[in-house]
């Protein structure tokens, strides 16, 4: 791609929080002071050596970073490719979400906030937030759609064990989108003592920027580990996309490199079924949850209900930076169906002894199916964003198995 558009990517977001025409702060006036306070706290932390030292100490000794880069020998042999997995599933709490939760909870503490709220879809972010809230002795409320609570009962109980209050959200589609609405409504009323710990690269500025920066540890580690283990750069980076935090975390440190990148969205029951969460593939630009970006919406501008077997991808919006990267053509955005993801879930479990989260299984599915048109021996790096323990019940149900 031409270098001019590359440099455009690198200066993102601009000082008003825009990624090209996306991003921004589409929020009620009540929230503007808090967003300003958060941005200031983040910029000040950026200058403060002790902030990064503490974050790094927690990342290493509490979360278990750096996570391994694993050469997946059996699937590599089957595909005729060299496949490496970035093992974010081995983080404490079982997914990449802890990277962002730790970064933000330290900011919340700097801002003197005593209460943390969050939304969660699959429950992985909610568990990460409940975990860091326990670690720092902060009150924690997690909003979760009733439908997601049913799908992810195990994670609901985990959050409760960690001392968080899980509030069911019964409005709209009763999934992640509605949980975010409810968290924002809570925040409008409690903003003076509460920090809203958003879990993905969505929401108003500065969230898409700071969540990206906290997740970019994934890509930075990959660059170093890959060059040590294999030398040079991989040919392709592959990650699943709901809001897009693990993908941007992997991609961002490689945007200056000559590396192909593919983000995989959930095609649900098929792109033409109308029941999917393929926002970048089938959506149009719009505004949701405080920022502009691609959106699944109808002709009247009402948000459409997404569907995915994976609660973490079941979201009708997507991060503003992904929206820009799509328009720039820097990242390709493809899709995998529920069925594809289930097949890849079993495939990785059987061949590598790793049960992946259904979210990450969407990314693996594209390799399993057609190798993404790669030449023999191509080197592929997949972000294994989380582990699949939480999905075992969903998968059993989908496979028609009764669990006791």
């Amino acid at each position: 791609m031409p270098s001019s558009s590359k440099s455009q990517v690198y200066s993102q977001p601009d000082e008003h929080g825009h990624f090209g025409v996306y991003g921004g702060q589409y929020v009620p006036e009540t929230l503007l002071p808090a967003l300003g306070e958060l941005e200031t706290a983040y910029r000040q932390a950026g200058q403060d050596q002790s902030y990064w030292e503490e974050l790094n100490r927690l990342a290493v000794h509490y979360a278990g970073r750096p996570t391994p880069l694993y050469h997946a020998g059996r699937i590599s042999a089957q595909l005729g490719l060299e496949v490496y997995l970035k093992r974010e599933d081995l983080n404490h709490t079982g997914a990449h979400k802890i990277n962002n939760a730790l970064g933000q909870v330290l900011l919340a503490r700097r801002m003197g906030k005593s209460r943390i709220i969050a939304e969660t879809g699959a429950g992985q972010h909610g568990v990460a937030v409940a975990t860091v809230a326990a670690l720092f002795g902060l009150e924690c409320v997690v909003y979760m759609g009733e439908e997601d609570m049913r799908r992810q009962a195990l994670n609901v109980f985990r959050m409760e064990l960690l001392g968080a209050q899980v509030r069911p959200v019964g409005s709209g589609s009763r999934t992640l989108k509605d949980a975010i609405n409810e968290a924002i409504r809570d925040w409008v009323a409690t903003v003076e003592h509460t920090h809203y710990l958003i879990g993905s690269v969505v929401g108003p500025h500065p969230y898409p920027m700071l969540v990206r920066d906290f997740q970019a540890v994934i890509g930075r580690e990959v660059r170093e580990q890959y060059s040590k283990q294999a030398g040079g750069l991989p040919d392709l980076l592959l990650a699943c996309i709901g809001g897009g935090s693990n993908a941007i975390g992997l991609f961002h440190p490689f945007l200056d490199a000559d590396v192909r990148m593919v983000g995989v969205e959930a095609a649900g029951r098929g792109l033409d079924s109308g029941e999917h969460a393929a926002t970048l593939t089938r959506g149009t630009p719009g505004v949701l949850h405080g920022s502009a970006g691609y959106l699944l919406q109808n002709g009247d501008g009402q948000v459409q209900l997404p569907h995915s077997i994976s609660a973490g991808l079941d979201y009708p919006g997507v991060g503003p930076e992904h929206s820009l990267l799509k328009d720039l053509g820097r990242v390709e955005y493809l899709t995998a169906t529920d069925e594809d993801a289930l097949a890849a879930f079993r495939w990785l479990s059987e061949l590598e002894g790793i049960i992946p989260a259904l979210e990450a299984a969407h990314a693996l599915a594209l390799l399993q199916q057609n190798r993404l048109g790669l030449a023999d021996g191509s080197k592929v790096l997949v972000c294994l964003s989380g582990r699949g323990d939480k999905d075992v019940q969903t998968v059993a149900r989908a496979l028609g198995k009764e669990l006791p």
Partner: protein
Amino acid sequence: MRRIPQVMAAPGKKLVPFFTAGYPQLESTVPLVLAAEKAGAQLVELGMPFSDPLADGPVIQQSSQTALENGVTVPWILKTVARIREQSQIPIILMGYINPIRRMGATRFLEEAAGAGVDGLIIPDLPPEEDPVFFEQARDAGLSTIFLVAPNTGSERMVHLGREAGDLLYAVSIMGVTGTALSARQDLTDYLKRVRLNANVPFVVGFGIATPQDVRRVGSLADGVVVGSALLQRLAQASDPPAEAYTYLHSLAAALP
């Protein structure tokens, strides 16, 4: 002359009812607005329903959901305003989230809104900085752009928002979403005095106003009061919504200081 500054310049406090357009039924909206005017309302807000109203409490969420199920769209609302204009000159403020407006096309929306007889706009998820061109075009089209201030809005920001708005500000009474109970504390008085001091334009107060006592107390500190959730809640149960709106709004209008 634009209708909103004209009405706000007239003596007396103003009662501003909020109706979700197309709620409880599609055909309710025109008679509701006419009944409100007869009951003593001087301006009317029409809510444009959105699937994800993040500044609204349960009552307006529910009314929005019903209105969408009734088939309400932005073009339908503009046609309805044109129908109201055949019978009434009451100033009409549209309140709605930005996404459906952008989806229709912002320029087309502004032209058609002005043409239909809309007087003002409140977009709760669009601060003036986020789309200055939109607000400039709106004012060029003759619409009043009404911005929100909240208890945590700094005084300098209030001055700025008043200047940007030009004709009218909307002071949110509490930190919270629509329909939250009004605080009885001294804080509200101090806050509204601060708005008066810093906003160099008239302002109305909304969120949580439900009773004649609320209208009396808040009305004495502002140029008008907005009543939304409490009104919609009554309409939800009413067998004759316009008659219910008339009775309720009449009791509130009588309490205006």
